[in-house]
């Protein structure tokens, strides 16, 4: 099959508007006859379900959590971008578009990203109208801040809980539609297969997680909005239940999976504390507005800190290496995430890490400069033009508390250290996945009628995602893109009528799911699901992690295959299929992570260049910066499923065409 991105012709600034004008519509009186299934109810899924419900479609929404408001979008801290230019600092739709393309290392689709920048403006208006309490300034207007990879203040926020407020906004819109009967919500349900009839997506097999019953649900179209696959690493910033299963099942049914090797490593996570760690916690990137990142300049200081003999506050200013400010003076601590992450790894690999545990990995995020600066400002505002040092520190801490209080509290709860007094310790961790199901401009996968939105698709971020752009994409897809493009598809279905779940395709899919469940329960081996998941995670982190090389990737492919074989011969899943069984849920997810993990390594191996989150050690310049190969790798790598071994997968290339942006080396100096 040839990949057709369906990018409309015309100038970039009018493409979307012109295209929308010519899409087919479904008349209001016909929408109730059309069923749509939406899997996942985070920002992308809840906004889509609310919008389609409001339009009058008959919507069924599914989530594995006990309520849509638990979706992991809720944990996003820092903010959401929009090209409003409220701060009069030169922002525009074009500049947001440009920053996003450049931030993505020229591996995203121009037309999609421009559309995202265009609708970003409406997202803020929409959310404010829904009662989302964004931060305001003293004049009552919306406040903004900066994020990595940009030189303007375009990020809207609600303290360190922006994702929470946006998700609760989308959840309230969804709740309204549920209350009105337009959306039927299935909590604690997990999609375990896609059902295709005559080549089109026509339904799903879902497992009721409380009873264990397998259910058949039919629809005229299926939307996958299940987020990313970072949990393939076991340790990540993702929620424990976040998984790839729905996206992977769709892939196995014919949807291409694009750019799986593009994984964002977020630079500011709390370092690992020990072997019992279950997940990692992010500290918002917005902290880099106020925090300065450093490690000791002298290796003996770093050693003493790791040994617990020196405290960071005892290191003199001139003995600190503010390595981001040193290497990237123009952007400083606000370089993009991939750049900041690699720079931290480089310092730790060179022996300057500061964490006093077995890993030795970690760098400081220090607020003392900002505390003094803001403290002085606050004293001046209060009329004190000659404040004592004590007053300055006190007022500075107050300022920090107002801006980042909840993050500081969270840090202290986890680490037992007070970040107002001592610098935070941070280290990069797996955060967001830019790869995902391949979709065209309509957000439709290579399976007709199967749409994929938000982090579950591959489309908007290229090889790296800039901060505050994930929330933007989730809501853009759900509120303002999918309602138009899915209607165009559904216009052909007004005479189809209800689709029976007694069709043989449903029976077969249900039997397949049942077969897999029985198989896993019957192994009765000696290792728990988590043991396998942790082993997979280690292979992934060590060999398909922050830096990859040919040898490591080849090893990973073989090791994962062996681990998968052992899994099916030696996993122990207690309990039965017909009850609430959390180990069975995990086993089904880990089975898919194994297949995906191998494909990630296969994809990383073929991409003989470094770009964004994909750093191949063989391709770097003398200063350790990424070496992209635009001549040979300016494409989306979309994989077709051909069997359980990822080495069987077939690569299809979607060439990326840049008509409106000149490709350049990515320079943040």
């Amino acid at each position, binding site marked *: 099959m040839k990949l057709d991105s369906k990018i409309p012709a015309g100038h970039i600034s009018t493409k979307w508007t012109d295209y929308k004008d010519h899409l087919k519509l479904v008349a209001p009186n016909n929408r109730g006859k059309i069923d749509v299934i939406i899997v996942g109810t985070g920002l992308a899924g809840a906004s889509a379900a609310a919008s389609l419900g409001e339009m009058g479609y008959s919507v069924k929404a599914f989530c594995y959590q006990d309520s849509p408001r638990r979706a992991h979008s809720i944990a996003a801290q820092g903010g959401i971008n929009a090209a409003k230019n409220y701060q009069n600092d030169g922002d525009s739709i074009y500049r947001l578009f440009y920053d996003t393309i450049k931030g993505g290392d020229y591996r995203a689709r121009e037309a999609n990203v421009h559309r995202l920048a265009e609708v970003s403006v409406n997202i803020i208006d929409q959310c404010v109208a829904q009662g989302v*309490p964004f931060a*305001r300034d003293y004049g009552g207007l919306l406040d903004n801040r900066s994020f990595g990879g940009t030189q303007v203040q375009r990020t809207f926020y609600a*303290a360190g809980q922006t994702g929470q407020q946006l998700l609760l906004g989308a959840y309230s819109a969804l709740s309204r539609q549920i209350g009105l009967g337009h959306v039927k919500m299935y909590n604690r349900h997990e999609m375990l297969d896609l059902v295709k009839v005559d080549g089109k997506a026509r339904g799903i097999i879902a497992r009721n997680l409380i009873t264990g019953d397998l259910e058949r649900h039919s629809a005229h179209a299926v939307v996958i909005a299940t987020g990313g696959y970072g949990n393939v690493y076991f340790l990540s910033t993702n929620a424990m239940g976040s998984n790839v299963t729905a996206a992977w099942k769709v892939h196995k049914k014919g949807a291409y999976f694009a750019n799986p090797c593009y994984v964002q490593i977020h630079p500011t996570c709390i370092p690992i504390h020990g072997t*019992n760690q*279950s997940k990692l916690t992010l500290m918002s990137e917005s902290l880099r507005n106020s925090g300065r990142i450093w490690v000791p300049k002298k290796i003996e200081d770093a050693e003493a800190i790791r040994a617990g003999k020196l405290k960071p506050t005892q290191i003199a200013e001139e003995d600190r290496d503010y390595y981001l400010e040193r290497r990237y003076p123009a952007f400083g601590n606000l370089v993009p995430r991939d750049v900041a992450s690699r720079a931290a790894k480089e310092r730790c690999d060179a022996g300057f890490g500061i964490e006093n545990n077995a890993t030795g990995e970690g760098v400081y995020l220090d607020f003392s400069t900002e505390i003094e600066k803001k403290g002085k400002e606050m004293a001046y505002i209060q009329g004190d033009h000659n404040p004592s040092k004590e007053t300055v520190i006190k007022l500075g801490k107050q300022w920090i508390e107002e801006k980042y209080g909840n993050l500081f509290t969270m840090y202290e*709860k986890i680490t037992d250290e007070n970040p107002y007094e001592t610098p935070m310790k941070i280290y990069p961790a797996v955060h967001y996945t830019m790869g995902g199901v391949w979709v065209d401009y309509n957000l439709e996968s290579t399976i007709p009628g199967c749409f994929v939105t938000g982090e579950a698709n591959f489309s908007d971020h290229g090889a790296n995602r800039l901060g505050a752009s994930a929330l933007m994409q989730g809501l853009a897809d759900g509120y303002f893109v999918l309602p138009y493009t899915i209607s165009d598809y559904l216009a052909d279905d007004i005479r189809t009528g209800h689709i029976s779940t007694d069709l043989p395709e449903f029976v077969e899919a249900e039997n397949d799911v049942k077969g897999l469940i029985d198989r896993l329960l019957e192994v009765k081996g000696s290792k728990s699901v988590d043991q396998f998941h942790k082993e997979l995670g280690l292979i992934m982190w060590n060999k398909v992690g922050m830096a990859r090389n040919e040898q490591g990737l080849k090893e990973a492919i073989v090791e994962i295959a062996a681990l998968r074989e052992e899994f099916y011969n030696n996993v122990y899943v207690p309990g039965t299929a017909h009850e609430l069984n959390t180990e069975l849920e995990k086993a089904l997810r880990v089975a898919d992570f194994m297949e995906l993990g191998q494909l990630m390594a296969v994809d990383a191996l073929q991409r003989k260049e470094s770009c964004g989150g994909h750093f191949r050690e063989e391709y770097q310049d003398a200063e350790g910066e990424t070496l992209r190969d635009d001549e040979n790798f300016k494409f989306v790598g979309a994989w077709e499923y051909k069997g359980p071994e990822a080495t069987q997968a077939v690569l299809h290339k979607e060439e990326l065409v840049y008509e409106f942006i000149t490709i350049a080396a990515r320079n943040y100096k």
Partner: protein
Amino acid sequence: MASSKNININLKVWRQKNAKTQGAMETYSLADVSTDSSFLEMLDQLNEQLIGEKKEPVAFDHDCREGICGMCSLFINGQAHGPEMGVTTCQLHMRKFKDGDTIYVEPFRSKAFPVIKDLMVDRSSFDRIQQAGGFVSVNTSGNTQDANNIPVPKHDADRAFEAAACIGCGACVATCKNGSAMLFVGAKVSQYALLPQGKIEAATRVQNMVRQMDEEGFGNCTNTGACEIECPKGISLENIARMNREYLKATLE
């Protein structure tokens, strides 16, 4: 500085096969628990031990493990989310316990939160309250006015945000002797009542949400204030007072 050490603990955990069967406390002992582990990581460790012994692991709700999704619950030593103030169970760490401690772990108990299995309860009654009116009836077209056209005083925005910070975990209900959901509902009502966008429907909203809250079998508030103390997000009793005012206003209109 954080100091890491391992402790041994005893656990008394509520086990209940499903909603229909009776439950009972089971005793377990667990060795080598890192004090840097979260409470849920300790339960992971218990479950690994149980699976190793070919026993069924303990079912409990959890997801983000960052204190924000509101999915984790647990009554620990008689307190919702355990002994530490202002945290969810996932952010409670084992450094708050001592070597040799016996820890009681039970589900959130309330008529409106039926037990599903072991430590998991069904909190969908909160969703139904939200569906009854916890929203602003604006369509999702994006054709709204520019967001800065309605300035919101910073003070109001901040108070609305504080109310909106509720994570719907249900600790307020679990800890209330009446099983009242008024802190949760009060927070939702307050968020919208404080913002200009939510004012138009304020009267129907509060009436519908309160009606649904009663139908779900939650008890009434008798101003004991335990909910506020146990709330991991510091949602204030002020919100209950505001809800009562809104409700009174609505009935007088």
